[in-house]
Structures are given as C-alpha cells and as structure tokens.
C-alpha cells in the first residue's frame, strides 16, 4: 500500500444521516457497554498468549495444590471429607478474584495507549468504558472457571450438589467475580500505570485470598489472624460455595452474609469508580 492511493477525496459531507438516535441514558449506557464489551472481546483471540496466561494460572494452582498439599490438608479435615473437593472450591474462587485484576490491567492499558482520552472526548456514557471492560472480563472469568472445573473433574473433584445448589453456587461465584472486577477497576483507575496495577494490585489482593479459608480451615491459622480470616467476605464466599457444592462445611448463613457484604461493597465501589474515571483528566 503506497501513499499514492491516498485520494484527496476527504469531504466533510456525507450521503448518510449522521444524527445520533436519542435514547434514555440507561439504554445508552447498556448500548455503549455492549459496544465496548464487544471491542474488548474482539481483542482476546488476537492476544492469545495473554488468554493462555490467564487460563493457565488457576490450572497450575489446581494441579499443585491437588498433588502437593491435598495430603496435608486431608489431615485437617473430618473423616470422609474430600480434601480435593475442599481445595478445588478455594482455587476456583481465588482464580475469580485474580481475574478481577484483568479489569484494572485493561483500564490502565487503555489509558496508556491513549484510548481513555478518546472515549472521554466522545458523547457516550463514560461508565460504559468500565462496564464494557467488566462484561468482557466476566466472559473471560467464566471461560477460565469452566476450564478449571473440567480439569478439576479429571483430577478427582466430586461435588455432591443438586441442580439448585449448583445454581446458587454459580450465583455466589458470579457475584464475587463482578465485585472483584469493580475493585480491579478502582485499582486500575487509581494507580494509572500498567506496571503499578500488576504489582501493587496483586499485592493488595493476595493477602485477602491467603488469610482466608480458601486453602485450609481458619482454625489452623495463627490465632491473631483467625478472627479476620474466618469472617472476611472472601472466606464467607468460599464457605458458602463449599457448603453448596460439597455439603461441607454447612452453608448456614454464610451465603447470605457473603451476598450482603458484596452488595454493600458495590454500593461504595461503583460511584467511586465513576468519580475516579471523571477525575482522570487532571
């Protein structure tokens, strides 16, 4: 392609009707989120190494915990409770939390490449830049979680849940994923550089997943950490999902508490995200 075929034909006029359809704000937000979400998904197969990276990480956790720590964890569990079942749920939720960081990374990348300012200069609903990112990251989280579950079946995961329990567990995992995408968005918008998001973001999230019931009952953690570890919302999500899928420990009120925590978090985090987004120009 030589530049000789640049026609000098650029004209301001167009035969098309370039007037925007006017829509209610909420409809416009959904429409714009879908457009941005689709754009983010179009990018995925063209960055296949990245997709492999985010899919493989939870699989590595799964295989390492399954074959290295399952024996040890088994000794902390009552007779008849499968350590594999126990660990798989923790690893699924940890994977979901980490995939929320993709949202932060993606937003920081858009800022770095100058797309954020292009979006901000358009007459669109600006929150759609974040929501569209989350739509795509949720799709990727589903893909990576389903992959992990399939591999888990192959290495001995035997959940006891009926259909209703599966649906409830999927609901809790989905809500957790959604919340962590928003938290990722806050980190991505607040920190501004891609490098800071991947290092500081993970350092901030890591303790939440380890000081929890994800891999071992909180009774076996140092006593000064137990109170936090047993009652923090990530542990509640893990416990609820475990109870629903494996029947151990009892679901009790953990599912409701987890849902309340996450809804409360969203009430704070969504307006915070919108504020951070508009402040970016400064």
């Amino acid at each position, binding site marked *: 392609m030589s530049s000789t075929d640049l*026609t000098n034909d650029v004209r301001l006029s167009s035969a098309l009707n370039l007037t925007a359809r006017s829509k209610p704000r909420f409809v416009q937000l959904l429409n714009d989120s879908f457009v941005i979400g689709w754009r983010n998904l179009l990018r995925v197969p*063209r960055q296949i190494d990245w997709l492999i990276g985010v899919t493989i990480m939870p699989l590595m956790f799964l295989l390492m915990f399954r074959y290295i720590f399952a024996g040890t964890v088994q000794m902390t569990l009552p007779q008849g409770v499968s350590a594999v079942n126990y660990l798989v749920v923790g690893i699924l939720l940890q994977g979901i939390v980490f995939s929320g960081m993709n949202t932060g990374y993606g937003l920081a990348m858009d800022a770095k490449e100058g*797309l954020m*300012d*292009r979006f901000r*200069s*358009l007459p*669109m609903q600006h929150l759609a830049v974040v929501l569209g990112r989350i739509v795509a990251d949720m799709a990727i989280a589903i893909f990576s979680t389903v992959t992990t579950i399939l591999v888990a079946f192959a290495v001995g995961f035997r959940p006891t849940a009926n259909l209703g329990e599966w649906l409830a567990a999927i609901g809790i995992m989905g809500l957790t994923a959604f919340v962590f995408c928003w938290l990722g968005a806050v980190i991505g918008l607040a920190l501004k550089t891609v490098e800071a998001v991947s290092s500081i973001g993970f350092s901030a999230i890591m303790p939440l997943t380890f000081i929890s019931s994800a891999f071992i009952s909180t009774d076996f953690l140092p006593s000064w950490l137990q109170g936090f570890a047993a009652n923090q919302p990530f542990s509640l999500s893990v416990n609820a999902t475990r109870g629903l899928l494996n029947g151990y420990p009892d679901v009790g009120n953990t599912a409701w508490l987890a849902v309340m925590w996450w809804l409360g978090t969203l009430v704070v985090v969504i307006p915070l995200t919108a504020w951070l987004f508009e402040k970016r120009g400064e």
Partner: protein
Amino acid sequence: MGYSGEYAVRATGLKKSYGETQALKGVDIHVKTGTVLGVLGPNGAGKTTAVRILTTLLQPDAGTAEVAGVDVLAHPDQARRVIGLSGQYAAVDEILTGRENLIMFGQLYGLPKSIAKARATELLAQFGLTAAGDRILKTYSGGMRRRLDLAASLIVAPPVLVLDEPTTGLDPRSRADMWQVIENLVSDGTTVLLTTQYLEEADRLANEIVVIDHGLVIAKGTADELKTQLGGERLDISVADGSNLAEVEQSLQQLASTWGIAGNEVLVEPHTRRFTVPYPAGAAGLMQAVRDLDSVGIHPTDFSLRRPTLDDVFLQLTGHAAEDMEGDGSYE
C-alpha cells in the same frame, strides 16, 4: 452540520493550576469560523492544557469556553458532538482493524450499527484505506495510522476539528498528504484548531497563529504579520571551522550597530558556526554588506540574505529555537 456564527471557538480568560504550577494564567483563544488557528508554544507552555479544556477533557479553574455556539463547560456532552479531536492524546485501538475502530466509534456517537458500518466504508475510501481496512492497526504505517485517527474524529462530520500535533513523527510525504487532507476539510467549511511544533506547518495551514509561553498568549496574528513585526530581512553568515566565535560575534555586533541594529539581535548558533543578523538595507545593499564584513575581518564560508521565517519569530519571542520543542509530556 455547519456553524454560522462568527467565531467557532471562543475561549476567554482560561486559567488552570496544578498545585503550585500555573499552567494557564488567563488565555484567550478565538478561531473565526471556517479558518485555521495554529497554536504554537514550547514544551510546557500550556497549549496542551488549553486543548484539553476546549475538548472537555479538563475543567479550567476560571474562564469560559464555547465551541460552535455550545458552552463547553456547561454542556460537555453537546460539545463532544461538535468537536472532532485527533492527535497525541486521543488514540485508536491498535488491536482492532481500521474498520472495527470506525464502527465502534460510530456506535459510541449513537449511530445505528448499519449507519456506523456505512460511514466506516465511506471514510476508509475517502482516506485511501479501503485495502487496509480489514487489517489490524499494528500493521499500519505511521501515516496510515494517523489518517485513520483523523477519520475517527470525522465520523459525525463535526464543524470544529481540534488537531493536536497531527503530523508529529511523520515522514515528509505523509505529512504533505495530511496537509492536503486538512486543507480539503477547511475548504469544505471546517474550523480547525491546530497545535504543532512544526512552524512550516503553521505557516502553510494556519490563517492565524497564537504563540503561548508560560501560560500566556505572547503574540498573535497572521504568519506575515508576525514576520513583519520582526522587521526586515536576515543575513545568515557562516564562518570557517576553528574561527574564534566570540571575536566574530563582537565584530558583528559593532558592525550591526552601524546598520542601526542592537547588539542583542545578533544571534549565534555555535555548533553550525552560523550568525544571523537583521539587515535593514535588504537585497539592494547586499554588496555593501559583503564589503562591510570584509572591512571588519569576517570572511564567511557561506553567506545569504533571506526573509524572516516563523522560526526567527519564535526564537525572538520565546528565547528558544522551535526544534527544542518536543511533544509535551502527557500532563503539563
């Protein structure tokens, strides 16, 4: 789509501070409808801050801004429909194809998908990108990428275009192509506000020029007016390698005073050993100039008389050569 008021861009008293730093100290920018205004200024002068305010990306601390009759500060969403922004701060997606980019932006402007698609095809053809339309942008040359970027800002045929250093980093041929495109748009009635670090670009495209430095407008007018302000023609005198530049400068200053020129108007560029001095007698006095130089013992290796350029204007006004200006940091 057109705008018929007298001024398509009217900003007055723009002020913006970042902590202690005053990026803009009260800047007025007026662009007559259907004309091109070139905004010049060294790195950190405040021109990027002004552009970001006019394109709704930044809130000023004080001042008013109106584009195509829309109050930018009160109605940013309406303003975004009448301004096309292209340049270093508003990029396109490198991992999408040219067509996918244009369709996405079209939909974000609120166009129905069928219209967004048809508009993408139309723009790709106008910009000579039809063949490349279905390739991802990573495979584009710098010139192609910049054309797509401009196309993206023209999706709804806005009456006002803001071009932030539109040809920085392009090869001369792509730059000439881009100038042609901008001239076409202007002849169709588009109003353009252009920031540039190439004075040649401002000279060719801009009807009027404002020079911003330290957050203030320090000069404005047409390119010719600015050059005339600077007085008559210039003598460029290069001397041999190994000459004592300080000695030559002193002799030249003494000589200049006999021509009625102040000593501080003698400029020297040490690494090229070139002196520039205003020469009021012009071409008619050229032989006299040669004799005068000989009489004070200056033997040029190169010697020429020329009209002042915008570079001279710039140097005079800001004390920096234009080449010292680089792309501004992302936030001034």
